[in-house]
């Protein structure tokens, strides 16, 4: 090393001992204090409040939980569905990680002799921090452009958000300025290759004015380090003690870790329904601790709002706004409840003051919000819990639902048709249907739509025709079949649902049923995923899975061409709830001559038909009709046919085609009917 360098690094050693070491020691003491503050604040602000909620078991599946956590946190697995915000957040996150790693190495490098002269690891750590800062700057600029210039409607900009940007920018720039000043004071000829190891700071050093003497420069170093380190520590303290949006740094990973691994929209039963004194959720502490964590973890990103069919058609529901309103309610009521002995608490009701009835009943339980949420917030169960309270405790529900509930109670179907008429649709079948018994093959669960709705009876007949033609033995329960209970459960009438479910399970167990094939995805979801809660464990298939298997094995051959263009509408309870996307498409691709084109919103992003969540039985009085919006999306594809595998969706699409004046131009069919035509 030449003499000039030796003198320089000897001088640097003086700076380190007199300037940086005291700062570092002070910072480490402050850091210990910050960690203690964080632990205390976490317990005081968050953990105590979550414990207000009911117990819920989210233990187990540790490996899967850790895998989710790493995938979402480090790879940003659920962020990339939207490229711009995904990129922006990825840059900011990894930039912060690089800055942190670089700083940690440099913080402890002096004590292990890596700084005088700077060894490669020290210089590399410096470079890593520089790159990190650049990534954060680029990501931050993308974020500022999006929030303040593009201004998507789902982003709510409050002063505390702007504060984070200003503070972050100031901290980044002061960090670069410290390094830039040191480079400027040292001079390029003294230290080796600064531009390679600290490119951004080197650029800044070209613009920094240096004081004429060493002691004055030393004073300036103190000044610049203090205006970087102190505000950084105070920012950390602010994030810890306030409700800063940056708290998602630790709340989001916790929420991801405790996510549910069950299929979406599998509703938990009300425990001890016969003896319970309250049902559903009236006030905030009646949610579970996980539901309260969901509220706190929500980052207000608005992805759920952008996909909600109710919001997009002008209904008062916005999943984002509902979650944020409930969060503010929690922040307001939580401390009051904690300060009051349990027997003296008078918590505020949630309905009307925090959540409106129109808002709540607008939800179709389509699960689009849960599909796009980056941190696995569960909205559907929360909405149903609120509905359960309204229906079971206050007997409050929309007028159209009253008749549906009465029909389910009296006739075990939502149409109110006599139970004895349930098998009448079979009268038109040639050869009838085989009598009952598991020795007769697989049970065909027809469902209420297939039994009573004229349009869907045609679908049931098509499936029967297909099964008979390929020689698959099957049978039906006929008049012993009752509604699966889906309309009751999704509208909050858990008591009625459990009665219907238990009655059906008894009958199924009486016949020793092992395998069931369903026409309707709602029946499929309920029988497969929710009947086991009451002891009804069966092997349940939706007919699309069954037919796709038969096509794969060659037992089902489709030979007659249908020379048309078709688009496929994914039913929410087949697709998002049960991840069945490929089986229906396989069926369509197997039909000769049929050309499948996808809508923009297909697969996981499919747009609801508007009938789920009990809305099949309710009128839409607010905004535009959801089925019309979906039909408009279908029309954009210019397809002649729209295929679906759900009786609700078929009904809504047929109505949508009529309402949009597209009769004669396009037609809606169930996949069964198309398969039958192609046999």
């Amino acid at each position: 090393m030449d003499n000039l360098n030796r003198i320089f690094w000897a001088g640097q050693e003086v700076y380190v001992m007199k300037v940086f070491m005291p700062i570092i020691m002070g910072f480490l003491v402050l850091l210990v204090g910050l960690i203690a503050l964080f632990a205390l604040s976490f317990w005081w602000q968050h953990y105590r409040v979550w414990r207000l909620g009911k117990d819920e078991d989210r233990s187990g599946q540790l490996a899967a939980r850790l895998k989710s956590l790493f995938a979402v946190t480090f790879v940003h697995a659920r962020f990339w569905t939207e490229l711009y915000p995904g990129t922006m957040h990825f840059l900011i996150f990894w930039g912060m990680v690089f800055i942190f790693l670089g700083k940690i190495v440099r913080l402890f490098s002096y004590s292990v002799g890596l700084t005088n002269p700077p060894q490669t690891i020290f210089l590399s750590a410096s470079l890593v921090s520089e790159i990190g800062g650049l990534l954060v700057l680029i990501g931050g600029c993308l974020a500022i452009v999006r929030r303040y210039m593009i201004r998507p409607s789902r982003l709510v900009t409050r002063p505390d958000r702007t504060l984070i940007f200003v503070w972050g920018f100031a901290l980044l720039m002061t960090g670069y300025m410290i390094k830039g000043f040191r480079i400027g004071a040292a001079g390029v000829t003294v230290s080796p290759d600064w531009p390679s190891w600290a490119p951004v700071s080197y650029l800044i050093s070209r613009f920094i004015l240096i004081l004429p003497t060493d002691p004055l420069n030393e004073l300036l170093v103190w000044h610049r380090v203090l205006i970087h380190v102190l505000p950084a520590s105070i920012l950390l303290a602010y994030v810890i003690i306030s409700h800063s949006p940056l708290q998602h740094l630790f709340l989001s990973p916790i929420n991801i870790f405790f996510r549910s691994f069950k299929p979406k929209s599998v509703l938990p039963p009300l425990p001890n329904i016969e003896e319970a004194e309250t049902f559903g959720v009236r006030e905030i502490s009646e949610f579970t601790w996980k539901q309260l964590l969901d509220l706190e973890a929500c980052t207000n990103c608005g992805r759920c709002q952008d996909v909600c069919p109710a919001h997009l058609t002008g209904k008062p529901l916005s999943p984002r706004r509902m979650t944020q309103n409930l969060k503010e309610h929690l922040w307001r009521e939580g401390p009051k409840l904690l300060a009051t002995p349990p027997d003296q608490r008078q918590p505020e009701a949630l309905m009307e003051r925090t959540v409106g009835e129109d808002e709540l009943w607008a939800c179709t339980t389509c699960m689009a919000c849960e599909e796009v949420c980056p941190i696995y917030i569960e909205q559907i169960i929360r909405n149903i819990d609120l509905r359960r309270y309204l229906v079971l405790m206050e007997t409050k529900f929309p007028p159209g639902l009253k008749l549906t509930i009465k029909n389910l109670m009296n006739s075990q179907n939502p149409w109110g048709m006599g139970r004895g008429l349930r098998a009448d649709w079979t009268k038109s079948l040639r050869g009838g249907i085989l009598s009952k018994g598991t020795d007769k093959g697989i049970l065909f669960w027809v469902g209420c739509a297939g039994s009573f709705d004229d349009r869907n009876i045609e679908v049931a007949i098509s499936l029967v025709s297909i099964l008979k033609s390929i020689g698959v033995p099957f049978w039906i329960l006929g008049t012993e079949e009752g509604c699966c209970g889906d309309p009751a459960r999704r509208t909050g009438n858990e008591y009625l649902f459990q009665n219907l479910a238990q009655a059906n399970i008894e009958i199924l167990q009486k016949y020793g049923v092992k395998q069931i094939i369903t026409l309707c995805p709602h029946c499929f979801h309920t029988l497969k995923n929710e009947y086991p809660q009451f002891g009804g464990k069966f092997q349940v298939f939706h007919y699309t899975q069954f037919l796709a298997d038969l096509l794969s094995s060659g037992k089902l051959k489709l030979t007659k061409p249908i020379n048309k263009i078709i688009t496929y509408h994914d039913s929410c309870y087949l697709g998002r709830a049960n991840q069945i996307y490929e089986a229906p498409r396989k069926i369509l691709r197997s039909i000769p001559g049929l050309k499948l084109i996808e809508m923009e919103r297909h697969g996981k992003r499919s747009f609801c038909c508007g009938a789920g969540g009990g809305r099949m039985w309710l009128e839409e009085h607010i905004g535009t009709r959801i089925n019309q919006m979906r039909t408009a999306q279908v029309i954009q594809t210019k397809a002649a046919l729209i295929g679906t595998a759900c009786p609700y969706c078929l009904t809504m699409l047929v109505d949508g085609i009529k309402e949009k004046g597209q009769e004669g131009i396009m037609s809606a069919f169930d996949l069964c009917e198309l398969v039958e035509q192609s046999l």
Partner: protein
Amino acid sequence: MEIFYRPIAIILELIILMAIISSLFAGMQFALLDLGLDQKYKKFIERALVIMGCLALVFFIAHLITFYPRLSLF
């Protein structure tokens, strides 16, 4: 670096210092409100912090003009 750049450098330093100060003050205000301070005190706190910010600004301008160097080693 020429003397022409001195005002620009002072302004840049001022921007960063005021960004830090405004962030600190705004953070203090939000934290106080988050910790339960009544909303009715919000305007008073805002005005107090604006006054303190203006005092800080005046101090920084005077300080930087007085002490920022006129000479450069380059």
